[in-house]
């Protein structure tokens, strides 16, 4: 495909080049804004020994959780790993390595990875198990620890709309980690609900510029809801 057209037409093509023992950065918060079909493709490929960087690890039968039964994930870097029985079993048995990382630090590590910042200081985690082995330093009388950037061989991202050049727009809280993941992958693959022509998105309203994006594919999504909380219509 010539020039800046990043649209691919199959999931095989979308995840081409993914190999055992690679690191994948994933967008999504819980089951919200996850690249459902890219995850399915990773399951289909059967790639093993993966390091996943993702705020959560899905549930037993949806999201990144589907990669657990075949033990495709060797290590996960995440902030919250509840809601997943198989996950807990593999973690407790030592089959799965888990690096718990505070949510804000995780987001900032992805951003730093994409932005060429190798490390930054943060107060988050000072004096806790997260600080173990990390440099501590005082600035203006407060304590901070040094955290390092994360980058991945791949990033898997879910956006709402993309143009063919890979400019992305996200929808509501499905944005979450996705724009950060998009910056931190050597190969960034984006799954979207709608692909439009370049020029159709307002340049002032693009959340992720196409420079970060390598491949775009249009998918259909289940969008499973984790906690269906409602109020009665007559409030």
């Amino acid at each position: 495909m010539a020039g800046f057209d990043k649209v691919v037409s199959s999931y095989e093509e979308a995840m081409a080049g993914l190999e055992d023992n690679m690191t994948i950065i994933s967008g999504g918060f819980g089951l919200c804004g996850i690249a459902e079909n890219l995850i399915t493709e990773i399951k289909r490929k059967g790639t093993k020994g993966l390091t996943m960087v993702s705020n959560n690890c899905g549930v037993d039968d949806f999201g990144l959780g589907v990669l657990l039964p075949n033990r495709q994930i060797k290590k996960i870097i995440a902030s919250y790993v509840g809601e997943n029985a198989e996950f807990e079993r593999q973690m407790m048995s030592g089959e799965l390595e888990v690096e718990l990382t505070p949510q804000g630090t995780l987001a900032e590590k992805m951003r730093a990875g994409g932005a060429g910042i190798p490390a930054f200081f943060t107060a988050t985690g000072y004096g806790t198990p997260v600080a173990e082995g990390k440099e501590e330093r005082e600035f203006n009388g407060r304590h901070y620890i040094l955290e390092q950037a994360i980058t991945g061989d791949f990033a898997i991202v879910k956006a709402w709309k993309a143009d063919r050049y890979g400019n992305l727009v996200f929808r509501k809280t499905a944005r979450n980690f996705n724009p950060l993941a998009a910056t931190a992958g050597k190969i960034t693959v984006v799954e979207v609900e709608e692909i439009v022509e370049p020029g159709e998105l307002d340049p002032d309203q693009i959340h992720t510029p196409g420079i970060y994006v390598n491949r775009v594919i249009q998918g259909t999504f289940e969008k499973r809801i984790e906690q269906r909380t409602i109020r009665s219509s007559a409030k």
Partner: protein
Amino acid sequence: MALTREQLAQRVAQELQDGYYVNLGIGIPTLVANYVPEGIEVMLQSENGLLGMGQFPTEEEIDADLINAGKQTVTMATGASIFDSAESFAMIRGGHVDLTVLGAFEVDVSGNIASYMIPGKLIKGMGGAMDLVAGADNIIVTMTHASKHGVSKLLPSCTLPLTGKGCIKKVLTDLAFLEIKDGAFHLLERAPGVSIDEIKHLTAGKLVIPDDVPEMIF
């Protein structure tokens, strides 16, 4: 009588001020939103990337793309804004949130808090809690004063892995409202009908009791 969950939320709500940006943790803190005093406006920050969280949606309004940090479906309040997770924690870490309310397993006289892990039993992760306690100046921890078996959770020193060090100044339990300073819990208020002796008995950490300890008013 020990406070109910609803009363805990009500008491926290009394600390709200007009124009406050507030982050409410999962559980009891979430209930605070139901008791915002008349004439006061607050805006709720949800760390998954939403400022201006509204009430739960109706069946018709449900949107899988719009959830809060507890992964519950929500709506947006008027004047809400959406942003990515790095921006969300920039707000939190940068001290822009006026009040943070969250739960805990233990707190201690040094302002330490343990809330995310019970070794060998529970490893769900810290989520955004470590960022929240490190970033906020104004935090209220809501928790039960002691376990069902009467073991105090207000300790001389936390026994569980810490979520944050030296960052907690205010604790609201089902029995009392306390301030942490100078290496002790200072009793500010007691739950209606709860005696100072009972609080004393269930507080393992050093407790300072002023001459006058008013009952909470609801």
